[in-house]
C-alpha cells in the first residue's frame, strides 16, 4: 500500500506530464504483478463493484470520530471528496498505534470484493480495521477510494499506455489494444495482460479511437480541399462495431461495452463478415435520417430496451472507417483505401440500419463554409476533415484529422444558485445554476461548471460568499446579479425541467459585466430557440 500511496502522492500533486510518466514507469518496474494489474484497471476506469454505500461510510465515520453527521457533511462540502474528508477526519481523531503489517494494494481490493457477500456488521468491521491500521492520510484516502474506484488524478489512458510501453518494450499501439476491452483484473497476470501474442484471444477488443482536435487556423490553411475527405460531424455516440469468430460487440468511446443497449444491431451480426472492426457513430435515426439527440437520452440509461423504446428512438450506425478487415489490422492503410473497403461492406450488407457516413463534396473551402451553416438542419455539429491519405492513429492527434464545428448557440442568463466544487476546485463555489426571466420571475434552466478562468472563479466565489441568501444543504441561493453568456450545442423540449427545455453541453462563454439582470434573455427567447433549433 505504501508504494501505491507514494505513486498517488506524486500523481496528485505534479502537473508535469514527464514527472507523472516517470512515477508510473517506476511503479510498473518495481511493484508486484497483482498490484500492477489493479493499477492499470483502476486508472483505465475499470472500477471494482461498489460494496459499501456512501451513506453507510459517512454514518460509520461520524460515529467513529464522534461528530454529528451534519458536521461531517459540512466538511465534505468544503473538501469536495468524501474519501479525502473521511481520511482527514480519521487522521484528526485517531492516533495509530504501533505500525501494523504492510499489506499490498490487491489485498485490500480482494477484501472489498469479498464483502459483497458479507453482512453489514462485517463490512463495518472491515472499514474500521482499515481506518485504524493504515498509517497516513494518503493510505486512508486510497483505502476509501478503492470503494468507488474513481481516482481522478489526471492520468490519461495514453499516459498509462506510454509508461507500460516504456517498461515492457512493446509498441504503444499493442499496449493500448491489450488494455482496452474486457478483462478481469482479478483473473489476469501482468505478463498475460501486456503480452502481444494472440493465444489469449479476446475477440471483443476494440482499437483505441483516433480523435480530432478543433481546426486551429483558417481552414484554407489546410491546403487543397481535394486532399481532404469531408463528412458531417454527427451528434451521436462514437462507437466501434466488432465481429470476430461470429461474436459481435459494440463499444462506445468511453470504452463501455454497449452491445446489449442496441439489440437492433443483432441483425448485423449475421450479415457482417468475420474479422471486422468498424468505426462510426451510433445515431438515433430512421434509416439515413438522424433524429434529435435528446431521444438517445431516453434510452441510453435503461436496463431493458423494450420494443416500444426501439420504436420511439430507433438507431442506425453511421460507419465512417474500417480498422480491421478479414482479420487483419488495416489501420496503417490510407483512408481512401479503407473507405473503398468500407463502401463495399456497407453495400454488401444492404440494411437501413447500417449507413455509410456520406462524403460531402465541395470544390473549395468557401463553398464548404457556406454549407456548414446548414449543419443543424442535418443534425450535425459541423464537419470532420480527414486527410485522404491518413492512417488511423491512436488518441487525439493534430495534423490529419480535424473537427470544424459550428458556433454554439448562446443565451444571457443570471446566476441564482451556487455550490462548491471538488478536486482542485474544492472549497470554491464553482458549480452554478442559471435562470432566464419570465415576467418578474426567474426560471432556472441550466447548470454550468466550466468556462471561467481561475481568476474569474475567485471573483464569483467571493461574490457568492458575500451575497448568499439561503442555504439548502450544500447549495446557496445568491442575489441574482451576475450575468453570464452561456453557450450550448443544442436544445430540446423536456418535461423534467421547470423551464420546459433541456440544453446540450451548456457552459459559460463569458462573463457579461456589461449587462444587468433586467437585460438577460427571457423564457420566451428560449422557447423560440426551441422552435428554431429544437426537436420534439
Amino acid at each position: 500500500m505504501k508504494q501505491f500511496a507514494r505513486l498517488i502522492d506524486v500523481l496528485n500533486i505534479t502537473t508535469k506530464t514527464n514527472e507523472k510518466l516517470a512515477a508510473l514507469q517506476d511503479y510498473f518496474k518495481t511493484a508486484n504483478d497483482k498490484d500492477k494489474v489493479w493499477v492499470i484497471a483502476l486508472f483505465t476506469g475499470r472500477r471494482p463493484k461498489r460494496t459499501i454505500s456512501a451513506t453507510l461510510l459517512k454514518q460509520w465515520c461520524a460515529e467513529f470520530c464522534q461528530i454529528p453527521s451534519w458536521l461531517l457533511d459540512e466538511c465534505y462540502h468544503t473538501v469536495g471528496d468524501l474519501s479525502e474528508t473521511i481520511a482527514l477526519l480519521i487522521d484528526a481523531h485517531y492516533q495509530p498505534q504501533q505500525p501494523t503489517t504492510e499489506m499490498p494494494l490487491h489485498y485490500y481490493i480482494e477484501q472489498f470484493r469479498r464483502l459483497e457477500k458479507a453482512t453489514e456488521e462485517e463490512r463495518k468491521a472491515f472499514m474500521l480495521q482499515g481506518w485504524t491500521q493504515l498509517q497516513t492520510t494518503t493510505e486512508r484516502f486510497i483505502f476509501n477510494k478503492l470503494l468507488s474506484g474513481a481516482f481522478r488524478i489526471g492520468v490519461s489512458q495514453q499516459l498509462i499506455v506510454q509508461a507500460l510501453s516504456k517498461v515492457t518494450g512493446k509498441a504503444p499501439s499493442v499496449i493500448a489494444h491489450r488494455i482496452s476491452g474486457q478483462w478481469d483484473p482479478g483473473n489476469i497476470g501482468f505478463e498475460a495482460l501486456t503480452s502481444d501474442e494472440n493465444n489469449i484471444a479476446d475477440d471483443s477488443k476494440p482499437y483505441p479511437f483516433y480523435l480530432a482536435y478543433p481546426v486551429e487556423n483558417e481552414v484554407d490553411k489546410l491546403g487543397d480541399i481535394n486532399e481532404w475527405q469531408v463528412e458531417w460531424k454527427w451528434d451521436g455516440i462514437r462507437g466501434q462495431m466488432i465481429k470476430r469468430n461470429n461474436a459481435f460487440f459494440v463499444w462506445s468511446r468511453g470504452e463501455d461495452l454497449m452491445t446489449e443497449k442496441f439489440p437492433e444491431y443483432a441483425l448485423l451480426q449475421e450479415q457482417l463478415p468475420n474479422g471486422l472492426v468498424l468505426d462510426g457513430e451510433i445515431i438515433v435515426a430512421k434509416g439515413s435520417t438522424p433524429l434529435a439527440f435528446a431521444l438517445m437520452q431516453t434510452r441510453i440509461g435503461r436496463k431493458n430496451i423494450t420494443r416500444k423504446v426501439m420504436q420511439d428512438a430507433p438507431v442506425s450506425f453511421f460507419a465512417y472507417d474500417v480498422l480491421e478487415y478479414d482479420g487483419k489490422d488495416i489501420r496503417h492503410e490510407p483512408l481512401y483505401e479503407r473507405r473503398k473497403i468500407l463502401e463495399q461492406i456497407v453495400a454488401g450488407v444492404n440494411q437501413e440500419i447500417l449507413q455509410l457516413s456520406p462524403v460531402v463534396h465541395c470544390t473549395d473551402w468557401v463553398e464548404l463554409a457556406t454549407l456548414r451553416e446548414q449543419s443543424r438542419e442535418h443534425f450535425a455539429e459541423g464537419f470532420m476533415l480527414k486527410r485522404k491519405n491518413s492512417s488511423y492513429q491512436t488518441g487525439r492527434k493534430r495534423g490529419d484529422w480535424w473537427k470544424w464545428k459550428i458556433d454554439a448557440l448562446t443565451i444571457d442568463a443570471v446566476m441564482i444558485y451556487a455550490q462548491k466544487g471538488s478536486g482542485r476546485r474544492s472549497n470554491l463555489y464553482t458549480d452554478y445554476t442559471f435562470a432566464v426571466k419570465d415576467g418578474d420571475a426567474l426560471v432556472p434552466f441550466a447548470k454550468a461548471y466550466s468556462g471561467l478562468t481561475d481568476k474569474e472563479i475567485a471573483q464569483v466565489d467571493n461574490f457568492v460568499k458575500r451575497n448568499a441568501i439561503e442555504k439548502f444543504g450544500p447549495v446557496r441561493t445568491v442575489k441574482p446579479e451576475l450575468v453570464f453568456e452561456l453557450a450550448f450545442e443544442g436544445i430540446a423540449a423536456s418535461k423534467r425541467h421547470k423551464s420546459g427545455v433541456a440544453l446540450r453541453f451548456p457552459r459559460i462563454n463569458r462573463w457579461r459585466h456589461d449587462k444587468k439582470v433586467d437585460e438577460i434573455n427571457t423564457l420566451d427567447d428560449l422557447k423560440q430557440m426551441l422552435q428554431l433549433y429544437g426537436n420534439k
Partner: protein
Amino acid sequence: MSKLISFTDMGLYCKQGNFYIDPWKPVEFAIITHGHSDHARPGHQHYLCHTLTKPILQLRLGQNNYQTLEWNETIFVNGVKISLHPAGHIIGSSQVRIEYKGEVWVFTGDYKTEDDGISGQYEAIRCNTFITESTFGLPIYKWKTQQEIYGNIQDWVLQNQQDDKASVLIAYSLGKAQRLMDAVKNITDTVYVHGAIYNMQQLLDEMGYNFVQVKRISSGTTKQELKNAIVIAPPSADGTPWMKKLNPYRLGICSGWMQVRGNVRRRNADIGFALSDHCDWEGLLSSITATGAENVYVTHGFQSVLSKYLNEQGIAAWEVKTQYGAEDDEQPVTDHANSTEP
C-alpha cells in the same frame, strides 16, 4: 446590563469605554490586536497596541499617535479596564481583555494555541463572553506539530538540493516567513527573499528576530547564488515573472489550506505544508472551553459551523459577520489564498 462589545458597521465597539477594536473604518480610539492589514487599518486618531506591534504599525501605517502596553499590563479608558494577552498568532499579536463592573469580555483577534517560539504562548483568559475567530473551524483541520512540519520542510529542501533545485517557499511576509527562517536555520546560513519580505525582516532584525542571514533578491543576484538556494517569497510573487530567475526550482506553499490536496493542485505547487498561524479545530474548542465563557461570538471563518456545534455542546454561541479575513475571501486559494492568513 448592556453588552460590553457590540458589532457595528465600523467594527467591534465598546460603548462604555467609547473605543473600537480592530475597526475597519477610521475612528477616534482603536485597540489593534496585531499588525496584519485586515486588522490594523490606517486613519485612526489614536492607536493602542502591544509594544512589539508598534514598530510593525509604524512601518506599515507610518507615524501616528501610538500607545503601547505590555502583556498583562492594565489601563483604564473611561472606566473600562483594558489589558492585552498573548495570542500566539504573530509577533506582538494580542487578545484584548476588557472588564467593566465585574463583567469580562475577551476578543482573540487571530490566534493559535501552539507556541511557535516567536509569537509568544497563547494564554486562555477566563471571561464571561469570548469572541473567537474560526478561520479553520472544521474538524478536518488538525495540525501536525511544528516540529514535525519543520522536519518535513527540511527533508524537502535537502531532497531538492540533491536534485539540483532551489526550494521556493511561499509564505506571508509577516509571521509565516519568520517561522520558515526559524525552520531552516539548522540546514542553511542564508535565505534569499523577495523585497516585500526583506523590508519587513529589516525591521524584525532590529527587534532581535534574526535566525539566518537574509539576502534580498535583486537584479544583481546571480543565478549561481540562487542555485540550490532556499527562497522565501510572498503569495503575490507566485506565478509572476519574478520567479523565472529562480529556475530550476520546486515550489512549496505554506498555509493551513494546504491540508486539502485539491488546494495544493490548484496552486500548481510541488508540495503543500499545512503550516498555519491559526488554531485548528481542536485548538478552537479547547480554548473556548478553557475560558469558561457563558457566551461565545464566532467571527471570521466557519462562523455558522462552529457556532452551531457549540450550541449543540451546550455553549451559547452566535455567528458574527466581520470584515476580517477579507484577504482570504477575496483570493480564495487561487493566488493569494490563505497563505496570507492575515
